[in-house]
């Protein structure tokens, strides 16, 4: 008798909860976010999270999408794939989000793609690794420029300078490995020969051994592919070893923090970057300039901090998703199809033209080459 009463009570409770859940889901669109807001990659995740929060607030202030407000559920992955997996499970099963923005890094993104594929929830990653969208996975998109395009931009510049032999130094994590793969693969297309390829650990304190080895191989230039702080140590070591070769870095260090870390050693370093870093130097006719200035004004007003290119990935992701949400009625399949057919979307990173074969949608034009001079960026035309 008592058992029966208890089970009745439970049944009533469950029904009530389910009903409440149903009501709740209809009144908002829940969007998940996974960013490495703390940890080594916080320089990526922190501005991304802030940008996403800012954009959601802005969209809600303008009345939401089709009259439905957005709600952001954001988790911190700490740059750790294991934590990203637990975050994605929470988003998919507990929060039941419509779509996910992030994660910030390639390893964390690759760790969760299988989960979103299985759950059939659209994911817009803010990470650069080419493996994320190649081969194309139906539910996975990304807004950051692929390292494929970054390497192409660097090699084009080298070719124009008459460089023939290069030494490659990459960080031994996903970003570096993916970059190394692209650097080695594309070299031939630009008539370049990789004479020495080395790697360093993300937390190494000294890279002179690797640089000595590269120097001994006699290259015309050195390419370092990594994210802070390793490449700053490489920049210092190059100066200390008096290696008088052009040093190229990746877009992974395209932030003022790199100049601060490397100090004088940053001078003369050439790297590809999204246009956001050099907004003030762009031509007035550049179609991205107005969007970039808008974003910077909003971000500055809200956080009293300067923008970085990384926050721009989240800016584009939220805007793309907002576009796809329009008229979807909260149907994940419709959101996915709308994302895939997005054409000519001008974002902070570049012009997005998605298709069934391309879930990144950018061209090498999304990159410009800059040189660091006297602690600031100079656009190379």
């Amino acid at each position: 008798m008592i058992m029966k009463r208890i089970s009745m009570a439970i049944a009533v409770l469950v029904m009530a909860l389910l009903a409440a859940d149903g009501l709740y889901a209809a009144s908002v669109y829940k969007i998940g976010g996974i960013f490495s807001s703390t940890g080594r990659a916080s320089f990526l995740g922190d501005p991304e999270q802030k940008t996403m929060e800012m954009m959601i607030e802005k969209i809600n202030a303008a009345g939401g999408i089709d009259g439905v407000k957005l709600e952001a559920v954001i988790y911190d992955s700490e740059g750790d794939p294991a934590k990203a997996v637990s975050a994605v499970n929470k988003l998919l099963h507990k929060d039941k989000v419509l779509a996910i923005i992030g994660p910030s890094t390639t390893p964390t993104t690759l760790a969760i793609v299988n989960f979103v594929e299985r759950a059939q929830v659209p994911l817009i990653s803010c990470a650069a690794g080419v493996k994320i969208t190649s081969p194309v996975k139906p539910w996975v998109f990304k807004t950051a420029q692929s390292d494929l395009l970054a390497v192409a931009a660097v090699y084009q510049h080298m070719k124009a300078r008459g460089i023939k032999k290069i030494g490659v130094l990459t960080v031994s994590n996903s970003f570096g490995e993916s970059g190394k793969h692209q650097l080695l693969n594309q070299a031939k297309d630009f008539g370049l020969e990789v004479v020495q390829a080395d790697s360093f650990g993300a937390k190494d304190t000294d890279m002179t051994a690797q640089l000595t080895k590269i120097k001994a191989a006699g290259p015309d230039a050195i390419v370092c592919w990594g994210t802070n702080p390793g490449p700053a140590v490489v920049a210092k070591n190059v100066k200390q070893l008096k290696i008088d070769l052009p040093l190229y870095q990746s877009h992974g260090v395209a932030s003022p923090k790199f100049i601060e870390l490397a100090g004088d050693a940053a001078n003369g370093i050439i790297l590809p970057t999204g246009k956001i870093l050099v907004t003030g130097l762009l031509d007035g006719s550049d179609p991205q300039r107005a969007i970039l200035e808008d974003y910077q004004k909003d971000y500055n007003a809200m956080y009293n901090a300067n923008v970085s290119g990384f926050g721009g990935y989240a800016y584009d992701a939220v805007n793309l998703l907002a576009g796809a949400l329009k008229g979807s009625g909260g149907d994940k399949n419709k959101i996915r199809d709308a994302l895939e057919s997005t054409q000519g979307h001008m974002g902070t990173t570049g012009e997005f033209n998605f298709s069934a074969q391309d879930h990144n949608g950018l061209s090498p034009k999304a990159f410009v080459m800059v040189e660091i001079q006297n602690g600031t960026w100079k656009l190379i035309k």
Partner: protein
Amino acid sequence: MQEIIQYLFSGITTGAIYAVIAVGLSMLYSSTELINFAHGEFVMVGAMAMVTFWVHLAWPLPLAILAAMALGCTLGLLFERFAIRTAKASNPIVLVIITVGASIFLRGTGMLAWGKDPFSVPSFSSHESIEILGAALLPQSIWIVLGAIGLAGGIHFFLKKTLTGKAMVACAVNQKAAWLSGIPSERMAVLAFAISTGCGAIAGIFIAPITMSSYDMGTILGLKGFCAAMIGGLGSLWGAFAGGILLGVLESLGAGLISSGLKDAIAFILLLLILYIRPGGLFAAKEAKRF
């Protein structure tokens, strides 16, 4: 040839850092039989304190170094008083777990205090690198090696020649007997903690200018220091020192001559080999076994 010399220079620099960390670990082990897995975090505290005192507050260099050291020692004292002593009667494994917990706590506190971004600290002296046989030697490397030798020598002198030091060794050999002869063994343990964490902070102070400092830099350095101490023989001061240098040089030569991808693996393969062939470490004293 020129390359080999360069590898040696790099190796000795990193090795000297490992040596300072290992000396601190080893000295704590010899006086309290405790392995402090939070040691690496004290390295972080030293490096980050340099960022605050020298770069942000612009104190003069000697004052900044002293302040960073004092911070490391003070935190060590607090750590002993509030975390270790309260669990004194426990199984050694409990104490080790406490140090692991302390390491996570310190890392978290470091993140709150200094933020998540890495920082850079300028070199102690702004000289150009010196060229020897075509290889470049950084002035900071000379500072590090001199600092490491000075520190190990100082601790050696303290343990062998001063009354307090001898009392500390006595405690390590037999705590009860030392207590019976009037040595305050608890105070000795506190002192050992302060010196050991101070060593950690010094390693951080020296390493800050050659690399980037951030709140999570300590873990891998602590592990490498632990490797070095094991290689040299836990509890042996000069053994730990030699272990550190050996580890640094082998890492650098391994990265240069074999493959840079194997750099970290070398440390741990070496550790496994040593534990297999000579469990007591390369330079362990014969009387390492206590009565």
